[in-house]
């Protein structure tokens, strides 16, 4: 269920109404065309050869038998196809920045020598069918010289640890210097001196694969010097630019088409190695090549959320005022720095003295990268468990402790609006927090114990540049061109609704053209919680521009059309723009077997004005459930002796199924802060941030033991209770 509190908002005509997706029929009839559903004449199938070793030098490679297999038309290897994958490893993890990519110290190629994780790519073949391609890959002979490997980030920083790169295992920052990421506000030493009590604790979190249902694939088709790339990309504009740069082409020589895609959650940003491998195979073979990753290849060869170790030190006064916060932490990035390795959460507190030091570390595990709110769920799990623990230890209700210590707007740092108090108090009431939480954690009699947990957040909802084009014909039919791809949240419906509202026409009168860089203008891409706000604002401005033309010239007649376009450069006038949320959960832990069951879940969010209540509701519900899976199930375990991954795949990572799913009560507090399209903020990423922290706090409240390692699996609970 979901419902809404609208604060002084006038109802709009289209926006705010439950609206089926404009492509819902295609999605329920099998007509929706995903990348693997395309077939081009003469198309070959590609297959990649991957390393079975966590770290090895490639001594030699012999492809002669593979090349001799009937049906094989191209074989490329680390020896004859050295293509830099710019987005695969970036100084500081700074994507979207060409100079940083160019200056990157540890560059990643589509094939690498040495190979640095189980699954690193070595070679690829293209053949007339996928079975022949598989067979050909198995015929490639590689001689490996196995090298020592390292799996754990803290261990990797020891002086005697095996080195992933000659310079060592601390990842370079965006300037190419081997330094941790440091944020130092106020003076923690002064803060600790002011404290009545100091608490220190460590938390760790696991690797969470994005595990989108559609495994990575790419279909490359050269038309002369132009590359047409059918690929599931969350950002077609960025994918085009990155692919062009990596292949030495101009942007206009690459066309990226992503009509439908089966999820990504951050796994399909920028271009991927599959795009470059498919393009290289296709160029060699002279015909289109469809490269398909298996589920296991996708699990190990693409990326997931970075595992972390977080050491906290918190100073607090007896009245609950936090005087100092310190975190020293390590993020395991695998052997390539694809993204930041950030650990968020501390910034949600107002404490004036905060020190944060994060060391992103190379290891010989699979690569880490962005997953829905890349830095937050694991960070909020750490800090909010830490703070919840402190609250109980000093005898305070964690909600009261939060209200006392959470970040608030200041004169120096004003917000566009601030609704965290209301979000929290609304959740307290709906969830019946006082009745459900155990004032004394673990106080239920018997082996089955209940408890309640709470978490809160604020998260970016900033504005930025994107583009849109709107056209009207003499029949007064509108066409909207936006470079979105609709990874799942419903962006093209959202964009259509915003256009319809701004144009004063029914949604059914707006055709949306999307997912093709040759037909659509630049869009930021469906990552970073930006599409609704940034591309949505461009849609509003393009519609306004078109309306001005119509007012000027009248509606077009005959074969005429009028076209409005916009690339706004909005600001928030120096104010911080955030969305807000609070989650409350009641769990039941069976301490005899260590299992955790969700009994009640309440999620309250302020995401500005909600464009489409149906899809917004399911963004929060789906993200919350992903977060619950992260809290209690998912991980990628490695065998420390062999460096082999043990739990890739849905079964082994124990993803939640229909039978594990609780009802999630979602409530939106709607406001219009005057920024963003009709006041819309963001929902897609924000929903996943809070479940790990809330579930962790609830388990601690139920069993009376703080669980410091996520996922909170049955064995860990049994260990804590023993």
């Amino acid at each position: 269920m979901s419902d809404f509190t609208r604060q002084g908002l006038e109802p709009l005509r289209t926006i705010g109404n439950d609206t089926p997706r404009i492509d819902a029929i295609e999605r329920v009839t099998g007509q929706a065309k995903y990348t693997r559903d395309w077939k081009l004449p003469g198309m070959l199938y590609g297959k990649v050869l991957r390393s079975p070793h966590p770290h090895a030098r490639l001594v030699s490679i012999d492809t002669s038998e593979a090349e001799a297999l009937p049906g094989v038309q191209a074989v490329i290897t680390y020896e004859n196809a050295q293509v830099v994958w710019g987005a695969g490893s970036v100084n500081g993890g700074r994507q979207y920045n060409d100079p940083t990519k160019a200056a990157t110290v540890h560059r990643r190629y589509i094939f690498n020598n040495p190979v640095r994780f189980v699954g690193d790519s070595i070679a690829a073949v293209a053949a007339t069918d996928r079975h022949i391609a598989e067979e050909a890959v198995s015929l490639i002979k590689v001689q490996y010289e196995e090298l020592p490997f390292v799996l754990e980030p803290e261990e990797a920083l020891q002086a005697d640890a095996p080195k992933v790169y000659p310079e060592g295992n601390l990842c370079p920052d965006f300037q190419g210097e081997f330094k941790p990421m440091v944020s130092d506000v106020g003076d923690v030493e002064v803060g600790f001196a002011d404290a009545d009590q100091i608490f220190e604790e460590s938390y760790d979190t696991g690797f969470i694969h994005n595990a989108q249902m559609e495994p990575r694939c790419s279909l490359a088709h050269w038309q002369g010097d132009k590359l047409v790339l059918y690929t599931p990309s969350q950002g077609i504009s960025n994918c085009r630019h990155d692919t062009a740069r990596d292949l030495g082409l101009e942007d206009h020589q690459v066309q990226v088409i992503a009509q439908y895609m089966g999820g990504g959650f951050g796994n399909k940003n920028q271009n991927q190695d599959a795009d470059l491998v498919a393009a290289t195979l296709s160029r060699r073979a002279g015909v289109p090549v469809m490269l398909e990753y298996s589920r296991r290849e996708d699990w190990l060869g693409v990326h997931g959320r970075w595992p972390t170790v977080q050491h906290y030190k918190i100073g607090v006064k007896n009245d609950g005022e936090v005087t100092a916060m310190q975190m020293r932490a390590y993020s395991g990035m695998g052997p390539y720095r694809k993204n930041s390795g950030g650990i968020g959460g501390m910034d949600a507190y107002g404490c004036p003295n905060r020190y944060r030091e994060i060391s992103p570390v190379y290891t010989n595990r699979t690569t880490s990268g962005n997953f829905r709110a890349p830095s937050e769920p694991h960070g909020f799990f750490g800090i909010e468990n830490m703070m919840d623990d402190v609250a109980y230890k000093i005898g305070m209700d964690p909600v009261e402790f939060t209200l006392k210590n959470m970040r608030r707007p200041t004169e120096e740092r004003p917000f566009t609006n601030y609704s965290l108090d209301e979000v929290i108090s609304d959740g307290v009431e709906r969830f019946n927090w006082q009745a459900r939480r155990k004032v004394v954690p673990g106080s239920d009699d018997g082996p089955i114990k209940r408890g309640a947990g709470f978490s809160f957040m604020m998260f970016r909802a900033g504005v930025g540049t994107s583009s849109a084009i709107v056209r009207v014909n003499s029949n007064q039919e509108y066409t909207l061109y936006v470079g979105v791809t609709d990874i799942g949240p419903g962006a093209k419906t959202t964009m259509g609704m915003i256009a319809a509202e701004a144009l004063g026409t029914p949604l059914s009168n707006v055709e949306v053209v999307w997912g093709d860089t040759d037909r659509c203008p630049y869009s930021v891409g469906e990552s970073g919680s930006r599409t609704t706000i940034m591309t949505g604002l461009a849609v509003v401005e393009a519609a306004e521009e078109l309306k001005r033309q119509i007012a000027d010239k009248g509606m077009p007649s005959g074969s005429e059309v009028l076209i409005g376009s916009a690339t706004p450069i909005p600001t928030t006038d120096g104010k911080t723009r955030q969305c807000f949320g609070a989650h409350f959960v009641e769990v039941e832990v069976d301490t005899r077997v260590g299992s955790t069951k969700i009994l009640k879940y309440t999620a309250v969010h302020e995401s500005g004005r909600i464009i489409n209540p149906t899809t917004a509701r399911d963004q929060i519900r789906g993200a919350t459930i992903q977060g619950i899976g992260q809290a209690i199930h998912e991980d990628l375990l490695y065998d420390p002796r062999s460096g082999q991954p043990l739990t890739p795949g849905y079964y082994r990572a124990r993803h939640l199924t229909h039978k594990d799913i609780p009802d999630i009560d979602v409530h939106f507090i709607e406001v219009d802060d005057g920024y963003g399209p009709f006041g819309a903020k963001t929902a897609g990423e924000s929903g996943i941030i809070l479940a790990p922290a809330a579930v962790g706090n609830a388990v601690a409240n139920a069993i009376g033991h703080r669980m410091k390692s996520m996922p909170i699996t049955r064995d860990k609970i049994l260990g804590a209770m023993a």
Partner: protein
Amino acid sequence: MRDKKKRGDLLNKGNDPAVKYADPKNQVLNDKQQSRRDFLEGSGAAVAAGAGISAFGIPSAKAQSGSSSATTAINLTVNGTQQMLDVQDRWTLAEVLRDQLDLTGTKIGCNRSECGACTVLMNGQPVYACSQLAVWADGADIRTVEGLATNGELSPVQRAFVANNGPQCGFCTPGQLMTATALLETNPSPSSEEVKEALVGNLCRCSNYNAIVEAVVMAGEEGGLA
């Protein structure tokens, strides 16, 4: 092309297409050497049963050579249309539907019986098409997502998915719809618990589970598949 009788011997239970995917006897492999999931990792490499599999599940060439491209003639009824096909013995039903019949609504999410995106109805029963060899389906009646709407009119469960946001990314949707259709044909008005029980083999990583269950219950309340 291989003789049909020999194919029956080779594939043991291949002539009984009604056998559900969950029946371990349906898999021809040597359990001592590898798990079924490892075995199914390669795309449709099923006849290489028991052969050595590398870290990435690629069957060794030795196991495949000689028999890999052998074909067998089969008959299928797909969405009411008779199909006579020569299929390679190593092709899965999902591959044949997608590659030979261009019915790409059936998705391959894991190719190893984990996710359910490839679910189709075989003689009315939901099966994972990624884990059925096409030759096993000889003589079977197959329904795919393309066969749910009749004369351009969506089925009740399709309508409910449209109304209640059943698909997010949509990649698991065809499988969810097929299992739900099988459920509604035997239980026209299921409770949400019954829906969860029936759909447990269909994963949704968007985790849109609540909306999917609500939609199937809604379809039931409309009177099932009248």
